[in-house]
């Protein structure tokens, strides 16, 4: 006879399924690293690489035949480093290898020749700065007096741009990977087949993946945002409610995509390839590391329809510009569509055995 005192309580299946997801994930140290550790390391590395530094000095080459007066003017200019080059060959070589941005060579009748590649931004800058120095050295006076005042604003730095991007990237990566691996492993071990031999609801099984993601979402977003705030002083100007909502809908959309990616695959290799295929375009086009506006206009409708673009744009708007929730409703609708449609297709396509 069962002793009622030691009866194990029976929790609803959805609760059990979700708890199982959480436990399995926590007990997988590698997965924990990829979800929590990796984005932090990436943010730290990129934050250090692109931290704000005094403007870098541009290297300008001169030849032995360049007139002394001109070389002296260049040396006195702020922001230029003058490099002596042996001859024309050395100058051509230095330009080719981007060792110098500009070569100032003598030309007929005491004039000078600027050699540079106009497609390089630093070369164009070097030309302007060098020309200003050369002309002033030769006696030019500026007709208009100007005054300069410089700013360094929180929110305008690369790290400010980067943190919302990494947040979006992380939502995508952990959503897709954690689900794809768990589903395919269960399928490969015939655990899925065993589960559908019970009265378990298939919808609840898939739903438990989305629910378990919500739990980790809070940790993931919290860790990355606190890291940005504490280490790089990255601001959150909008409301946390709006930020949380975008993260929530984004995370669910990527989880649905994870389910879709893993709906048929039988091996971890197959699902890895598929997941990379789905994620790579978003790594490149969705504006995580640099603005997606850099891509041609013709591609923009596609780029703007990607869920990562929507997530990252909405996160930047809220964090950096303090945009209200209403102004990111377009992105939210896009993400909702990416949640509902892939989930429905996944449920339909899903291979249970």
């Amino acid at each position, binding site marked *: 006879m*069962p002793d009622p005192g*030691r*009866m*194990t309580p*029976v*929790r*609803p*299946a959805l*609760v*059990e*399924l979700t708890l*199982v997801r959480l*436990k*399995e994930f926590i*007990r*997988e140290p590698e997965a924990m690293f990829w979800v929590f550790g990796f984005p932090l390391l990436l943010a730290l590395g990129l934050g250090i690489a692109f931290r704000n530094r005094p403007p870098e000095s541009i290297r300008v080459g001169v030849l032995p035949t360049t007139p002394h007066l001109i070389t002296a003017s260049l040396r006195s200019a702020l922001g230029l480093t003058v490099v002596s080059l042996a001859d024309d060959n050395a100058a051509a070589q230095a330009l080719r290898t981007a060792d110098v941005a500009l070569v100032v060579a003598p030309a007929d009748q005491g004039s000078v020749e600027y050699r540079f590649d106009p497609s390089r931004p630093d070369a164009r800058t070097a030309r302007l700065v060098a020309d200003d120095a050369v002309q002033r050295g030769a006696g030019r006076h500026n007709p208009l007096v100007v005054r300069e005042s410089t700013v360094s604003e929180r929110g305008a730095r690369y790290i400010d741009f980067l943190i919302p991007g990494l947040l979006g990237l992380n939502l995508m990566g952990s959503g897709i990977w954690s689900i794809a691996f768990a589903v395919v492993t*269960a399928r490969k*071990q*015939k*655990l899925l*087949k*065993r589960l*559908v*031999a*019970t*009265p*378990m609801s298939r919808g609840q099984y898939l739903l438990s993946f989305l629910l378990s993601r919500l739990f980790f979402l809070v940790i993931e977003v919290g860790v990355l945002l606190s890291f940005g705030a504490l280490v790089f002083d990255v601001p959150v100007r909008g409301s946390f409610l709006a930020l949380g909502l975008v993260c929530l809908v984004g995370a669910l959309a990527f989880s649905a995509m994870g389910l879709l990616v893993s709906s048929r695959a039988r091996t971890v290799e197959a699902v890895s390839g598929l997941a990379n295929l789905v994620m790579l375009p978003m790594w490149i086009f969705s504006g995580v590391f640099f603005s997606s506006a850099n891509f041609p206009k013709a591609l923009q409708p596609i780029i703007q329809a990607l869920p990562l673009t929507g997530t990252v744009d909405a996160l930047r708007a809220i964090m950096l510009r303090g945009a209200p929730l209403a102004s990111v409703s377009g992105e939210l609708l896009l993400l909702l569509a990416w949640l509902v449609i892939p989930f429905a297709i996944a449920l339909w396509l899903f291979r249970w*055995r």
Partner: protein
Amino acid sequence: MTPSKPSASASLALRVHGLRKAFGDVVAVDGLDLEVQPGECFGLLGPNGAGKTTTIEVCEGLTAPDQGEVEVLGHTWREDGDGLRQRLGIQLQETQLAEKLTVEETLRLFRSFYRRGRDVSDVIALVQLDEKRRARVGTLSGGQKQRLALGCALVGEPDLVFLDEPTTGLDPQARRQVWELIEQLKATGRTILLTTHYMDEAERLCDRVAIVDHGRNIALGTPRQLIAGLGAEQIVSFAVEEAMAGGLDDAVLEAVAAAVRATHPARATETGWELPVAATHEAIPALLAELDRRGLPLSELRTHLPTLEDVFVSLTGRALRDA
């Protein structure tokens, strides 16, 4: 064949009629019939590839048949799939349960799928995993994993239990533990359908056995009936000295079989020959005399009681193991 009367089939735990299932060109099940009575332990015995797993998975509602009728507990899968799931306990051949979960967590998960069922602690005690209650599945031995799989099949208090090769791959000690567990289950009056390619398992556990080969049912009965059907009292195994083994050609073997009045023709084993005989006390002297007359010196002589293995051999001409 006329369809059985509803009253007759309603009382059956499982009725399979004319089942056919092919995977591409391979016919796995080819017109199989089964009737399992409530409370009996029914065995599907046959070599690997005979279609046992396909048959049991069709009964479990996991595979759709190409042809034929399947009625489980008086219902078809189409009629009441969800209701049936609540009443069945299933152990699949190749399932690996989640390695990172503990024994208790695994059983709690399975328990949560059923409207009614046994207490998880009771099931843990039943399958003798009390000491492993908080151990992760990945750390369990093969036998412990199999007992946990049985626990998962029993946690919903099923009316009908399907066990697909419950002891395949286990060491003898672990097999015996699983057998004891299934015997306890039988004692509680549950209906069990199990598949196996071990004749000793079928003989020990099953009330009735269907011998399956090439997707067909080739014999049906209690293990005792099937063995008695051989008409053999004992199986005589013998071998002659290796140098003289060439002297035992087909004609000589036939003559020997006739001399001992064998119930079936002689069959080669790894080391010699086997003859099923009806009267051992007459057969042995006759065998000795016949071999002596032909100048074939015996190197080995043994007898054993016939088993289901011998039944299978007599029906198919092949041994279960190498079929």
